[in-house]
């Protein structure tokens, strides 16, 4: 094999792997990403039931209810709009009324949000950046207690 051919094989392999990676990334970024919306975004953008997205905001005061079984109901609010959420499963340890929350799921035809995941946090003072930004933009929240860095 000549020097040129050797280099060709090397470059060919690298280009092949890169091309594969680019195709995979392009496909994955088209189909596998999830958008984040606050309750008023949901109203403004007219999100259809069945589309997966992340709903974020504050857990409305006095909204958390449990039924006889393992279902939990609560409401997520950005103080302009509020969306009721149904969730089956254990809530994270730091889930509390009045605190920021991010949930994964989709809208039901009746306008409620069916969550299959409530994102847990490690730190009480932590506010998910999307929630913090969204609430600041709506003028609802202006930065919480000065968060102390941890870990």
């Amino acid at each position, binding site marked *: *094999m000549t*020097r040129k051919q*050797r280099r060709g*094989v*090397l470059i060919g*392999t*690298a280009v092949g*792997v*890169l091309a*594969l*990676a680019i195709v*995979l*990334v392009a*496909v*994955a*970024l088209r*189909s*596998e*990403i*999830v*958008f*984040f*919306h606050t309750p008023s975004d949901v109203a403004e953008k007219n999100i259809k039931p069945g589309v997966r997205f*992340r709903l974020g905001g504050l857990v409305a005061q006095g909204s958390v209810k*449990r039924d*006889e*079984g*393992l279902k939990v109901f609560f409401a997520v609010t950005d103080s302009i709009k509020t969306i009721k959420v149904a969730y*089956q*499963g*254990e*809530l994270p*340890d*730091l889930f509390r009324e009045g605190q920021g929350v*991010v949930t994964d799921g989709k809208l039901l035809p009746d306008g409620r949000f069916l969550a299959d995941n409530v*994102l*847990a*946090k*490690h*730190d*009480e*003072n*932590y*506010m*998910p*950046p*999307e929630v913090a*930004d*969204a609430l600041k933009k709506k003028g609802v929240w202006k930065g919480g207690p*000065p*968060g*102390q*860095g*941890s*870990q």
Partner: protein
Amino acid sequence: MTVELGHFALMLAFVVALAQVGLPALGLARNDVGLVAATRSAALVQCGLLAVSFAALTYAYVTSDFSVKNVWLNSHSAKPMLYKVSGVWGNHEGSMLLWVLTVALFGAAVAAFGNNLPDRLRAAVLGVQGLIGVAFLAFIIFTSNPFERLPEVPLDGKGLNPILQDPALAFHPPFLYAGYVGFSMAFSFAVAALIEGRVDAAWARWVRPWTLLAWMCLTIGIAMGSWWAYYELGWGGWWFWDPVENASFMPWLAGTALLHSAIVMEKREALSVWTILLAIVTFSLSLMGTFLVRSGVLSSVHAFAVDPERGVFILAIMVFFTGGGLALYAWRAQELRQGGLFAPISREGGLVLNNILLTTSCATVLIGTLYPLALEAVSGAKISVGPPYFNLTFGPLMVPLLLALPFGPALAWKRGDLAAAAERLWWVAALCLLVTLGAYAMLYRGPWLAPLGLGLGVWVIAGAMADWGFRVKLFKAPFAESLRRARNLPRSAYGTVVAHAGVGVMVVGIVAMTAYQTEIVQRMNPGDKAQIAGYTVEFKGAEVRPGPNYSEEFARAIVFRGGVQVAEIVPSKRLYTAPRQRTTEAGIHASWRGDLYGILGNRLKDGSYAVRLYFNPLVRLIWLGTLLMFLGGLLSLSDRRLRVGAPRRVTRDVATAPVAPSAAS
């Protein structure tokens, strides 16, 4: 007093670090031997000062000196001693102090043990290492002083975040940092080589053990973090493709590539320019990891509250070192000598393929991690990129890597024989096929790809064994001869075998856990039974008991298998007193078959409890595999060649023994 001493030592360390940069810069420019030699003392002194500083902070934590703001915020007098000590680095300021101490320790190690390094190279390395120290010391002194006093001494501290009060997590940050910072050695050597315009096999021989050490620490650090997330968070998962996790995984991928390309450079003097680039990139990714974790720009399940100003400072440090390193590379890389030629089918070729696949997969992780930031900057839309993205991009790139892995060590340097290698691996392929078909026959549920994944893991494990078998001529020579060969095989060869087998073990664990995990949620009253994966779990009711710094609601559940009691699991929910925070503790019955993993949920209105049970098949293999990788690194690191540094003999043997060169020392 001790605290002031620590603070003073910290500032003094900053000054000495400045000297550690200035001395070699001046010395190299003027060719002044005295200045160049003084760099070593500066590195040792800086390390000593930081050790004093770190000891002072530790002392403040151990004695619960709440007049120090940092101690007050993160410690509590009732906390167990282990967590008082780990509390030192369980917070931002302390962890950054640990970071600079680690940088200095690595620098001091070069200063102390680098006798056989050329003087100029050593001085340049120490200078770059000093510059990293300067940047982070400035960061600590100006934005995150751990020694700040409070005007009034509070009665007691606010306590460490309870989920951090855990043995695995106590040692997770030191290992992770040793890994991140360890790659700074490779970076310093790369920059020094670019400044000096010279790079050779001796350079690689120096860089490799440092990279290996850093890689080992990072491996064990990530594994500890993952293990902790598995049993402490109670989500029944071990890896979430979360930005904070990716932040540590990207340097690991690049570091793994660097480790392998450095071998080519050491043995064959090829790929030198590429290795230098990889060294710069690996450390840049380590810095980016620090930035992503410390700045909180990305939404993460592992995120902690952060101060945005600090993020900007770290971003500046990252831009300086990454940009500076790459600019220097662009300017000086042509000066470096390109190495020897090799056929595509050869050991070098195999290692190049390893590098291409590892760096590409690292790039896909990078894109997935940063894409939300980029998209938000461009369009304002907020998105999250979750596990489906990574499974779709990272997964397929790992398949060729794992397929090719057993071939690599079976090929000779320079020009390999693929047919001969395949012949050595035929029984491995047969075993792999058998396992795959067996898995299809026995496991009907789960994704159809999963048995192939299990087979792939077995392929890698058995491939590593086959490599060893070939080297000792197992069954090809008399047994005594094989035994003699096994004894004489260098430890680095054992290191390769063990680490590669570890990859396979981990793959089996990951596939089994991902594809065959089962989960049930059930309301349970005392006496109720639940069935999962062949186990019967009988709930015995819950009670409350006090702990050292928490109160705990715990449940007892008896685990039966085939009618026989095998274990009792005690899942619990803790309410810590300082800070007041709830945590969930899983009750785990571990076995080689898999873990039965129980979570105690909330008490329901009728007095019953929601109980969540998982069966996690072969999950221990994930961490066993990483442990094997670590041990492989350790074996390789303890190799005589690296300890004594007998380069000449090895080089000659490589030239005369084309078949299995690394077995010939």
